[in-house]
Every structure is written in C-alpha cells, then in structure tokens.
C-alpha cells in the first residue's frame, strides 16, 4: 500500500478511536449543558470550545463521528449485500430477467439521489413506530441511504459477473458438475471480490456525505443528538461571530472523507489495478 493509503488508514483509526472513546477522554458528556460557559473558544478545559448551550464541542464531534460512521457503514453494508445479490443474479441468469432487473435499476438511477433519500427517509420514519426518536431516525436514514446506494453496486456486480461468466474456469467448474448457485457463490464471487471491496471503501464516504447533508438541511438527526451535519448547521448560523463552531466540524468531515478517499485509492491500486477511476 502507498504512503497516502497509510495516511488514510491512520486517520481512520484515529477517528474510530475518537468515536469509541470520545466523551470519556474529554470528560464531558455530549449533551451536558453549562449555560455559564456558552460559546467559549478552545481552552484546556474545552478543547474545541463550547456551543450556544455550553456543550463541549469535542464531545459533540465524537458523538457525531459515532452517528455518522454507524449510519454510513450500516447503509453501505446493506447496499452491498442487496446490490451484489441483485446484480449477480441479473448478470448470471441473463436474458429477459436481466433486461427487466436492469430497467428497474435505470429508473432508480434517473432520480436525483438526495431527493429519493429525503422522501424515503420521511416515509420510513412514518412507518417505524414504537422506538425512540433517535433510533427511528437512524434506522430510517440507514435504509434510505442504502436505497440509493445499492443501485450502483448492482450495476457493478452485474458487469463483473458478465465478464467472469465467460471465463474458462467457470466453464471448468460447470463441466465438473457444479450448478448455477454453487458456481456463483464458490467460484464467481470470490474472483470479483476485489472491485467490490474497493467500491465499498468509496461508498462509505458517499454515505457519510449524504447523511451529513440531510442533517445539515434539518431533515436528519435532530438535536440534542449530534451528527456532523447538525454540528455544521449549528456552526453555520453562528459562524459570523463564532467561527470555531463551523471550523471544527468542517475539519472533522473533510478529514474523514479525505481519509476514506486515500484508503479507497490505495485499495483500488492494490486490488483492482485495471480500473483508473
């Protein structure tokens, strides 16, 4: 792996550590208010300052990391599982079924992502009952994000299966008596795993971005809970007088996304050398 890849991996390790330990390190709970110490700039006590309600910004960013990573990794996991099964079946079976399945994908593809995410998330929130607000929002976000993300995975998986299907080793497996499902799971999938891992590494940051965007416009995670989008939105309204409130969340999001891109690039060079983008 290249130097840049290691930088990305190191940044992500640091991020996960902060997400796991976060408020235990700083000694402040993410939702603990202290009106006497509102809107402070960074100090030894509050490493990144405090927000309008006197909450420790570092603890809130750590909480945001937890929420953002959880949602993004969850959504990417579902999207991968769904997309690989759908795409692999479509590509392997071929014919009419393939035509039909791919038309469905085409239509989903022509809807602007963010629009579909917002609508689906609102619908899902209405359907989910009997759980706390936070859980409801998080589950709705995860499902809504995977709804737009699996389409791309399905296309990729289908293309890879179509290529692999014609290879001599598939023919060999068939000649030895292996049937469709076995050929697909035992022979084809392991051979196309590389590009799928790479796409996973690139899809997590896309999901983080989408989640924080939805939260930024006020349709995602709701206060007092924090996601990076919520923090950036809070910071945006206050940045004229208190720039640290926008600078720290911005830096957290940007550093995380850069880290994922660096890692993704490195993985691609290692696992999928033919692709350039």
């Amino acid at each position, binding site marked *: 792996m290249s130097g840049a890849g290691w930088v990305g991996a190191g940044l992500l390790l640091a991020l996960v550590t902060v997400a796991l330990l976060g408020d235990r390190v700083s000694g402040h709970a993410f939702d603990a208010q202290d009106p006497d110490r509102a809107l402070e700039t960074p100090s030894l006590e509050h490493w990144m300052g405090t927000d309008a309600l006197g909450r420790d910004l570092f603890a809130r960013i750590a909480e945001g990391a937890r929420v953002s990573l959880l949602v993004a990794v969850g959504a990417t996991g579902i999207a991968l599982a769904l997309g690989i099964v759908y795409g692999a079946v479509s590509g392997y079976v071929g014919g009419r079924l393939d035509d039909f399945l791919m038309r469905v994908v085409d239509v989903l593809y*022509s809807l*602007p992502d963010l*629009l579909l995410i917002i609508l689906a998330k609102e619908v899902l929130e209405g359907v989910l009952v009997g759980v706390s607000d936070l859980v409801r929002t998080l589950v709705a976000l995860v499902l809504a994000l995977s709804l737009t993300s699996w389409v791309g995975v399905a296309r990729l998986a289908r293309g890879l299966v179509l290529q692999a299907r014609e290879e001599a080793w598939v023919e060999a497996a068939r000649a030895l008596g292996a049937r469709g499902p076995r050929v697909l799971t035992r022979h084809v999938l392991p051979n196309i795993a590389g590009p799928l891992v790479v796409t996973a590494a690139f899809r997590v940051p896309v999901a983080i971005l989408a989640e924080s965007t939805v939260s930024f*416009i006020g349709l995602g995670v709701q206060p007092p809970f924090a996601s990076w989008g919520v923090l950036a939105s809070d910071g945006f309204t206050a940045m004229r007088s208190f720039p640290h409130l*926008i600078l720290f969340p911005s830096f957290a999001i*940007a550093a995380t996304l850069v880290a994922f*891109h*660096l890692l993704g690039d490195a993985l691609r060079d290692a696992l999928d050398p033919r692709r350039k983008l």
Partner: protein
Amino acid sequence: MTRYVALRLLQGVGVLWLVATVTFALLRLLPGGPFDREKVLPPEVLRNVEARYQLDAPVAVQYLRYLQGLVHGDLGPSYKYVGRDVADILRDAFPVSIGLGALALGLALGFGVSLGLVAGTHRGRPPDHAATLLAVLGMSVPSFVLGALLILVAGLWLGWFPAALWEGPLYAILPALTLAATPAAYVARLTRAGVLDVIDLDYIRTARAKGLSESRVRVHHILRNALLAVVTYFGPLLAVLLTGSFIVEQIFAIPGMGRFFVTAVTNRDYPLVLGVTLVYAALVVLANLAVDLLYAWLDPRIRLGGAER
C-alpha cells in the same frame, strides 16, 4: 438518427411517467398532510380546503387527475404558496438554478480539464501530485463545508464577494465555485486518466516528430482524445450539479428550484415536490441523450441504436 432520437425521447417519457408514479406514491405514504398546523383546523374548514384541492377524492382518482393535468402541461396549484401554480413557481426558479448550474459547469470543466492535463503530462512529478491532492480535496470536502468556509473567508473576513442572496453576477461567484468543486475534481481525474491512455501512443510521437510545438501537441492531439472520457461523465456530472444545487441554494439563500424542494417536502406541498422532481428527471433524461449523441459525433466508431445499445 431521427428514429433513434425519437425512440429515446419516447423511452424518456416512459421514465418520467415512472418517476411521477413513484414520487406520487412516496408522497402519499408520508406521515402528515399539507394542512397540518400547530393550531388544528376546524374539521369543516379542513374539509373545504381539501375539497378545493380535490384531496377528498380517492388517491387513485387523484393520481389519474394529476397525470391528466400533466399531459396538458398543468402541474397543479401549490398548497403552500396560495394562488400560485407550480408551473409559475418553476418558471421563476428554473432560470436561476440553470444559470447557476451553467456557470458551475463551465468552471468545473475549465478547472478540471486544465488540472487533469497538467497532471497527466507531468506523470509522477510534483505537478501531478499537487493536482491529485487537489482532486481528492475537491471530492472530499462537502459543499456545505466549502460554501460555509467561502462565505466566512471571502465573504465576511475579506469582504471580496457578497455572502448571500442573488442580486447580480457578483452574487453568483461563491455559489458557483462551491457547486463546481466536486465535479471539477472528477473531471480532473478523468482527464488525467484519458491523457495517460493516449500519451504514449504512436500518433503522439508522430506529431512531435513532425516538429509541432509542445503546446499544439498537447491541445490538439492529446487533449482532444483524452476528452472522450470526460464526455461519458456528462450525465452523472449533471446529476451531481443538480443534487449539489439543493444545498448550495440553501446555504446562499438563492431562490432556485432546489431550495423550493426542501421546504416543499417539509410542508407536504405534494404538487410542488412532484413538479421539481419531474423537472430534474427530465433534465437527466435529456442530458443522457445529449451525451450519447455528442459521443457518437466525437467518436465516429460508435454506432447509435446498434446491437450494443
């Protein structure tokens, strides 16, 4: 050729119908209705309002009525902006969004192609590394972060540009830059890959051997062929710009379509959400068609409507 275009347009109409149906269904599944207020309306008032917008009919009937209107170019009334039709609102907002999008597209292509050309022709050397780093940053920094930072630094601290609103060309610069960053990064990567694909080919060596100047070789021989890769990206590029405009219009308080969409969803203004969605979908359909035509024109080896569609 005409046949091909007609066929694709017909398919596009089909896609739009599907988009309208899916969106219509999703909207009706949303919790709450357009006339839920903090203060609950008296039942008879609510009945009257719903009757006025024909919301008292069965959903299937409403759907058919909507499609009927759509065929006649009637997008229905807005529930929130009383007295205005969705078509009215879109007529005002569309040019704003398109203007901003076109400017951002220009910036993205200009920056992206030059960056990619520099990177590709200096492979492995410092300019390449610098350009690659810039591209990773462009892809990584979310538009609301970049927008906020631009407003903070260039708008508030330095005072070079107005920080918000939409009152002239100067107001378009920061939002267009914000919108252009991500697509510019993708264009740069594609251009670089395209340059690397052709840079070692024989015809480039021939061009140099003929004694052509380096700049002429780069622009006329290398870039021209490298750009094919960029053209295929036009469809997704437009989608990125459209999605980006939601956020950018929100941040900079620009009265475009994207801004209406967000408020329309929270207000449950069904016709307005549908209208914006359909305009976006239509743009994507048309852009994809334009890309395929452009591609065939640039690369005559490609046949339209052949066995490989």
